[in-house]
C-alpha cells in the first residue's frame, strides 16, 4: 500500500499520543489508589460503590445510636440500683418497726429514718440525666414526673411511653422506662393499685401512731420486685444491643470490603501495566526518531 509522508508522521505521532494518554491514566490511578477515576469508566461499579458507601454510613450511624442507647440504659440502671438499695433499707426498717419489742420512741426514730429514705426515693424517681431530662417522665422529659401533693398523696404527671432509638434498619430499642410502671402501677395489698411513695409514707405515719401495718411489707416487696424486673428488662435490652452491635460491626466490615473490591486499585496489576506502557512509549518514541531521519533527500 502506498504511504504518504504526512500519513507516516501522523500514524507515528498518534501512537505516541495514545501511549502517553494510557500512561497518564495509569499514573493517575496509582497516585489516587482508585481503580475508577470517573464514573464513565465503570458505571455499574460506581453505582455499587455509592450504594456500599451509603450502607456503611447508615450502619456507622446505627452504631452511634447503639452507643447512645447503651449510655442511657446504663444511667437508668444505676438509678434503679440506688433505688433498689434504698428500698432494701426501707424494708429492713419496716421489719424492724414491725417487731413487737419496739417501743413508741424507737418506732418514732425508725419512722424518721423511713421518711428520710422516702425522700431519697422521691428524689431518685425525679432524677435527671446529664442533659437535664427526667429519666422516668416518659415523653415529657422536662416535666418533673412525681409530684408530692401532700398528706401522703403523690401523683404521676409523666406518661407511659419510652424513648426508642433506631439501632438497625428495622429495629428500635427502648432506652427508658416510665415512672408509671416502676412506682405507680403496683398492685396494692388492700385491693386496686397504690404507688410506693404513698405506701412508705403511710407506714411511717403508722409507726408514729405506734401501730405499724404489716401489709406494708408485701407492698414494698412488690415494689422491689417491680424494680428488679425492670432491671432485668434493661439487662436484656443491653444484651440485645451488644449482639446488634456485633451484627452491625460485621456488616460494616463486609461493606468496607465490598467497597474496597469495587473501587480500590490492584497495585500489583497497575504497576505491571505501568512498566509495559513505559516500554511501549519508549519504543514508539525511538522508532519515530529513527524513521523520521530516513529520506531520499538526505542522499542527494
Amino acid at each position, binding site marked *: 500500500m502506498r504511504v504518504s509522508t504526512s500519513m507516516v508522521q501522523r500514524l507515528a505521532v498518534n501512537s505516541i499520543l495514545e501511549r502517553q494518554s494510557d500512561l497518564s491514566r495509569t499514573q493517575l490511578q496509582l497516585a489516587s489508589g482508585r481503580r475508577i477515576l470517573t464514573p464513565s469508566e465503570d458505571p455499574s461499579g460506581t453505582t455499587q460503590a*455509592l*450504594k456500599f458507601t451509603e450502607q456503611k454510613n447508615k450502619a456507622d450511624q446505627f452504631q452511634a445510636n447503639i452507643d447512645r442507647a447503651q449510655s442511657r440504659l446504663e444511667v437508668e440502671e444505676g438509678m434503679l440500683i440506688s433505688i433498689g438499695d434504698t428500698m432494701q433499707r426501707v424494708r429492713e426498717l419496716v421489719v424492724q418497726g414491725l417487731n413487737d419489742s419496739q417501743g413508741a420512741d424507737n418506732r418514732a426514730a425508725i419512722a424518721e429514718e423511713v421518711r428520710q429514705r422516702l425522700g431519697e426515693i422521691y428524689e431518685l424517681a425525679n432524677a435527671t440525666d446529664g*442533659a437535664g431530662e427526667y429519666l422516668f417522665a416518659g415523653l415529657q422529659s422536662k416535666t418533673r414526673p412525681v409530684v408530692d401533693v401532700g398528706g401522703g398523696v403523690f401523683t404521676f404527671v409523666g406518661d407511659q411511653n419510652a424513648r426508642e432509638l433506631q439501632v438497625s434498619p428495622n429495629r428500635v430499642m427502648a432506652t427508658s422506662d416510665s415512672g408509671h410502671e416502676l412506682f405507680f402501677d403496683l398492685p396494692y395489698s388492700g385491693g386496686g393499685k397504690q404507688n410506693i411513695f404513698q405506701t412508705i409514707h403511710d407506714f411511717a405515719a403508722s409507726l408514729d401512731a405506734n401501730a405499724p401495718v404489716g401489709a406494708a411489707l408485701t407492698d414494698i416487696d412488690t415494689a422491689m420486685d417491680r424494680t428488679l424486673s425492670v432491671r432485668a428488662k434493661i439487662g436484656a435490652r443491653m444484651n440485645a444491643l451488644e449482639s446488634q452491635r456485633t451484627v452491625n460491626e460485621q456488616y460494616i466490615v463486609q461493606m468496607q470490603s465490598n467497597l474496597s473490591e469495587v473501587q480500590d486499585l490492584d497495585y500489583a496489576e497497575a504497576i505491571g501495566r505501568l512498566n509495559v506502557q513505559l516500554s511501549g512509549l519508549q519504543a514508539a518514541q525511538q522508532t519515530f526518531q529513527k524513521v523520521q531521519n530516513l529520506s531520499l533527500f538526505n542522499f542527494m
Partner: protein
Amino acid sequence: MSSMLGIGITGLMAYQRSLRTVSHNVSNAQTEGYSRQRVNLGTQTPLFMGGQYMGTGVRVVNVERVYDSFVTRQTQLYTSSYNSAETTARYASTVDELLADPSVGLGPALDDYFATVQAVANDPADVSARQAFLTQAESLAERYNYLDQRFEEVRSQLNQQLTAEVADVNSLIGSIAMVNRNIFLAPGQGEANDLLDERDRLLGQLSEKIGITTVEQDDGSVNVFFGNGQQLVVGFDAYALTAVANKFDRAQLDVGVGQGGQIPVSAQISGGKLGGLLEFRRDMLNEAQNALGASAIAFADQMNAQHRLGQDLNGALGGDVFNSPGLDVRTETGVTNTVTASLVDSGQISADEYLLRNVDGAGNFELVRQSDKQTFAISAGGFPYTHTAIDGFQVTIAGAGSAGDEYMIRPGRNGAQLIQAQMSDPREVAAALPVRTAVAFANTGNATTSHNRVTSVTDLPLPADVTLTYNAGNITVAGAVPAVAPFAYADGATIAFNGLEFRINGTPQNGDVFTVSNNSAGVGDNRNFLELGRLQSQATMQGGSASFQEYYGQIVAEVGIKTRQAQLTEDAQRSLMDQAFNEQQSLSGVNLDEEAANLIKFQQAYQAAAQVISAADEMFQALLNAVRR
C-alpha cells in the same frame, strides 16, 4: 535539425513543467488537504512524412490531481461522526465527574443530612442537635443549588460554543460559495486543481462542524446540504444559519434558518460539533438537570409532609422545613393565555418534559409526553380549569387561548435551583408526635398500647382526650371528633381513625380504658424523627421503586453509561476517520521519497533533452563547416 531542435525544446518544456509540478508537490507535502498533482505526458501529433509516421516530441496532456471523490466523501462523513461523538463525550464527562465527585456530589450531602436527623432522634430535647439539623438542611439545599448552577454553567458554555460554531459554519459556507464561483470562472479547460483542493479543505472543515451531504453540479460547483435537504450552499449562494433563542426558553440557543432564523432546524442537525452539542443537551444535560430537580422537589415535599405530622417544642404542629420549589412551565413567545403546573404526588414526578398544545381555542388541549410521545387529551369545561393529575402534577389553564398555542412543561427543571431550607428556629423542629396513648391506671387486664403513628393532622389537636373502653370483645370510642363507631377487639390489630393509628396488645378485662391524648409537654419525644429517619431507606420516588439515594444513584449511573457510550463511539469513529484518512492519503498524499525520485528522473530527462539541443547545434555547425569556403 530544426525539427530535432523543436523536439528537444518540447522535451525541455515538458520536463520543466514536470519539475515544477514535483516542486509544487514537495512544497505542499505538509499542506492540509493537498492532493498531489501528476503531470501526464503524451506524444505530440506525429507527422506523416515519406510514407512514415515521424514522432514530433512530447507534450503535457494534463496536470492531473490524484483524487478519489468517494474516499474524500468517506473522510468527510467520518470526520462529522467523530467530531460529534468527541464533543458529546467531552461535555458528558464534565457532567459525569461533577455528579460523582465525592466532595461536591449529592450523595455525601444526603448522608450528612440524615445523620443529623438521627442525632435529633437520639436527643430530641437538645436544642443544639436541632440547630445542627436545620444547618444541615440548609447545606443540603445549597448543594442542590450548587449542582444546578454547575449545570447552568455547562449550558451557557454550550450556548457560547454553539454561537461560535454557527459563525464558523457561516464563514465556511461563504468561502465555499466563493470557491464555487472561482472554479466556474477559472480560465482554460480542466479543473483548477488548487481551487478544488481548497474547496475540499473547506468542506472537510465544514464536516467538522456539521454533518453534510454534497452534490456535484455539471458546472463544477458543489451544492451542500444538511439534515434532510436543508440547503447551505447552492451554486454561488450561501444560506446562513442563525443562533436563535428557543421559542419556549429564551436562555436556550437553537439553530435556525431563514430570515432572522425563524425556522428552527436544531432537530435536523446531526454530525459535527453542532450535532454533538445539540445531542448532548437533548439526551443528557436536560434529562440530568430535570432528574436532579425532580429529586429536589420530591425530597422537599416528602420531608415537609412527614415534618408536618409532628409536634415541635412549642407544642405546635410541625411547619415546613423546606420550601416547595415550583414546577417549570414555559410559554411560547407571544402567547398570553397562562398555564401553571402544581405538584400533586411527588412520588410520581419524573425527569420528563411535556408539550401542551391548544388544539382548537375552544377548550380542547392535548398534553404530549416527550419521552414516548404519549398523548393525554384535556377538555376544559370552564376556566380557569385544573386537570386531574398526570405523572404526579396537574396543569391549571387560565383561559381558552387560541388554537396553536404551545407550552413546555418541565416539572423538574428548576427544582434544584429553587429548593431552599426555610426553617430557622430550632424550637420549631417537630421531633415529637402530636398525640400519645396511655393505659388507664385502674385497668385490671394486662393490655398495653404500642405502634402509635400519625397519618393526618386535620383532626388535631384533639379537642379532648379520646377514650376507648373494652367490653365483652368490643371497643367503644368516646370523645373522638369526628365520631368513631364501635368495633371488635383483636389482639395486636392496628386501630386507625381520624388520622391516628395505634395497636392494643394483650388481654383487656371488661371496663378497661385506653386513652389517646394530646402530647402536651412531650419534649423528649422523638417518634416523628424516627419516622423521618426511615424515609432515608424507603422507596418513595419513581412510583415507589427507589429511595432518594437510589434515585440519585440512578442519575449518576445514567450519565456514566451515556458518557461511556459517547467515549466508545468517539474511539470507534476516530479509528474509522483515521482509516479513511489513511486511504485518502495513500492515494493523494505526497510521499517525499517518491517526489525525490521523480526530481532525479525529470532532472536527468531535462539534461538529456538539453543534450539533444546541443547535439542538434553541433550537427548544424558541422553542416555549416562542410560548406565553408
